């Protein structure tokens, strides 16, 4: 059951992240907006992180068959996802604190975190939680400015991902409990919630960049 859920979560995460990342990239190519560039990096990273973990499970299940995924693969996937969450939170911090700074409005500062594999995984889970919670709160605050219903879905999605990360991290304390399963179900819900408003963007009217056609 846990294996199945883990696969569903990682596949959904990969596909949702990829869809939003590609959409952001199309937006960036058409408008040159640095915000869309940061969203592209964020969601491609999130997608890649889920893909790395999914690949780890597939290799373990069909090639290695040891019964558990290599720890470092899981850690690597989580680190890549955290970079994605960082860029979401970073975009909000620029909007809130440095709206006129040309330095911070450029690509941004890549986070460098240097610290056994299990410890790193939990460090990154907790960082992801903080970044996601921050992103969810800032997105909800933006709703009060723009009254765009899609913002509520994104805020709910980031909030559910944050809760999922928190429960995933907390399951370290109670490893055999239902916490990890609950964490995965909540994260799947969060990813679906993120995708709902994005799926309504009318991309068909856009004339794509020639290089993308």
């Amino acid at each position: 059951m846990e294996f199945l859920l883990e696969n569903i979560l990682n596949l959904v995460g990969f596909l949702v992240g990829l869809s939003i990342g590609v959409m952001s990239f199309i937006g960036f190519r058409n408008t040159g907006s640095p915000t869309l560039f940061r969203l592209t990096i964020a969601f491609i990273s999130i997608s890649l992180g889920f893909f790395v973990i999914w690949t780890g499970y597939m290799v373990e299940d069909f090639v290695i068959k040891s019964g558990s995924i290599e720890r470092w693969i899981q850690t690597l996937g989580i680190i890549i996802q955290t970079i994605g969450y960082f860029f979401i939170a970073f975009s909000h911090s620029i909007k809130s604190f440095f709206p006129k700074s040309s330095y911070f409005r450029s690509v941004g500062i890549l986070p460098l975190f240097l610290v056994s594999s299990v410890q790193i995984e939990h460090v990154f889970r907790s960082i992801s939680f903080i970044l996601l919670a921050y992103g969810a709160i800032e997105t909800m605050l933006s709703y009060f400015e723009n009254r765009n219903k899609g913002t509520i879905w994104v805020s709910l999605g980031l909030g559910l991902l944050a809760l999922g990360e928190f429960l995933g991290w907390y399951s370290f304390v109670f490893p055999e409990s239902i916490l990890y399963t609950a964490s995965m179900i909540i994260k799947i819900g969060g990813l679906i919630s993120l995708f709902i408003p994005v799926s309504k963007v009318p991309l068909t009217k856009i004339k794509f960049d020639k290089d993308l056609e």
Partner: protein
Amino acid sequence: MAEYRTHMKIISDILATTRDDLQDEDGATVTYLIRKANISHSRISRILKTLVSQGLLEKTDNQGSNKYKISQPGREFLQAYYTFTNFADNFGLNI
């Protein structure tokens, strides 16, 4: 407190004026665009030069005064801008 406009928003305001709010068919003068887009002369001059060089605006010389009209690529850019503004809005962000 005045709302902070991103560089992209200022460009879209200029393009929208040259698309929807022209004085006459020949296009809009710099003075008219300054008033409509609420931007300084030195800044709009730089932006107009860039928009013309990028092919988003067409510049015409009409009896000694320059006038600006939106081009087809400009219309497409503006449409993309509005679509992706809505997209970024969903994330609580401005483009």
